[in-house]
């Protein structure tokens, strides 16, 4: 049995998505009394799209883009990030994180590539949050829905942000919207990569393709199919079970820390206010 083709279901009206996301960024940034945004520009499609959206929302002159290469980062990544900076006319800065990360790596002889990747992601978060304070700018997140669901991101690293315009768009939808916004072709077309080590691609590392997994996630999450129903619809059992397990085991990355309840009223449990309440 072959899986159903759900490409059309994932297709979005890009003009509508752009309108909502632009207003979202403008509203939620200015509500706080802030005019600026800062984001890490990796050279990949997610941060490129986030950059285009935020520049359209609050004006390119209010956006600080930070390139944060590590010594093994691909030169293409840096060039692609620069292409976006030049195209949009953003404030920009390059902070090489090698000197932040390498001393800790040097003290940790048994460190794995994954742990090194996490160190880099968290070093970048440190830089962004410092620039956030320096420029009075909110950190704009660049994790997409596929990554959030599969837990393909570093907790308190690249997953840390004040607000995220693309967190409800699957990777294939990110690509669609990026094309519509005329993000430069080389950035849209290249294989997605976290660029944490030389030659890394997301799809090789995860052992799946975004085109396939987005369709399965759409059924399991948006359409509320049970894993059994997804299998009945034509998806491979082993594949469905693997993806479902990832969704479940990565839930911790989508939630704040647990707090032990002791009192009559506890932050996060029954002390309930929206973040917007503060402004």
């Amino acid at each position, binding site marked *: 049995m072959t899986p159903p083709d759900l490409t*059309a*279901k994932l297709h*979005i009206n890009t003009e509508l*998505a752009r309108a*909502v996301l632009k207003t979202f960024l403008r*509203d*939620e940034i200015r509500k706080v009394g802030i005019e600026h945004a800062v984001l890490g520009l990796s050279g990949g499609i997610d941060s490129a799209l986030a950059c285009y959206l935020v520049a359209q929302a609050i004006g390119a002159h209010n956006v600080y883009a930070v390139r944060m290469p590590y010594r093994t980062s691909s030169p293409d990544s840096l060039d692609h990030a620069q292409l976006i900076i030049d195209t949009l006319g953003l404030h920009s800065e390059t902070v090489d994180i090698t000197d932040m990360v390498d001393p800790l790596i040097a003290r940790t002889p048994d460190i794995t590539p994954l742990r090194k990747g996490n160190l880099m992601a968290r070093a970048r978060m440190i830089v962004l949050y410092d620039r956030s304070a320096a420029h009075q700018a909110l950190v704009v997140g660049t994790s997409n829905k596929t990554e959030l669901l599969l837990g393909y991101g570093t907790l308190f690293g690249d997953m840390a942000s004040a607000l995220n315009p693309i967190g409800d768009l699957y990777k294939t939808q990110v690509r669609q919207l990026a094309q519509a916004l005329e993000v430069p072709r080389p950035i849209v077309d290249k294989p997605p990569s976290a660029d944490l080590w030389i030659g890394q691609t997301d799809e090789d590392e995860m052992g799946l393709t975004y085109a396939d997994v987005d369709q399965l996630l759409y059924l399991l999450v948006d359409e509320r199919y049970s894993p059994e129903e997804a299998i009945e619809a034509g998806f491979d059992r082993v594949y469905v079970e693997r993806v479902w397990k990832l969704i479940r085991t990565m839930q911790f990355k989508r939630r704040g820390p647990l707090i032990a309840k002791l009192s009559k009223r506890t932050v996060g449990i029954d002390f309930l*206010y*929206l973040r917007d*309440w503060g402004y």
Partner: protein
Amino acid sequence: MKITVGLAQISPKLADVRSNCETHMMFVDRAAREKVDLLVFPELSLTGYMLQDAMAHTARKAVPSDPLMHSMLEASQRLDLVVGFAEVDERGRYFTSGAYLSRGQIAHLHRKVYLPTYGMFDEGRFFDSGDSIRAFDTRFGRMAILICEDFWHLSPPYLAWLDGADVLLLTSASPGRGISDDDRLGSARFVETINKSYAAIFGNYVIHSNRVGFEDGQNFWGGSTIFNPDGELVVQAPYFEEALTVAEIDLAQIRRSRARTPLLRDERPELTLRELRRITGEK
């Protein structure tokens, strides 16, 4: 009779009654300049929508002595108003309420009956539900107020119609959701479809005021509408933007539409009641 209706599509500030009161006054001023007779604000327009625990500091009593209500009643000397707010009653119960204010009086108070408590909604956790659907008389004829989920259910508009409402005043804080390749969000498409249908089925004017803005990242889509008794769109406010949208409606159109399609005349509420009794098991 022809009247001028204004749709006050605002972006209320969460739990900031003073700021929202100022916004209301600004819209009242603008509407008065445009000779509006009836100005309709969205659900919870004075308080904001997802109040959660902030409800305790924000809710007001629906009495003329309350300073907020007093300001609104003053404004209603200039034109009739529908406003939305979190209401607390004398026994400490909270309601999502909508009030029709006219010439300094609270002409009608509707407490939201259906509180969505599923998916992204959590209203039943914080609010008590109202227990009546009533039409009421205004100087422009008989109307009814229904709040958001109230008109996602079929029965409240039907009851209001049978109770004599010729104009349905629908207010909402409808979060936008359901993106697809359509040029509207799923929630907008649904609401516009049912409102158009109510207008055509009842031979009523259906006036819908929906808010805009964001609360913790969730958008409210606006797109407020008026449909005439033939189910035709009279006017629509923009999506996602604050706007005062004004249109004249001809209440005589109700009679003309019903003459052509006399669904109200031929409606058989006693049959409905008999079948409802059977269905609910009442002897």
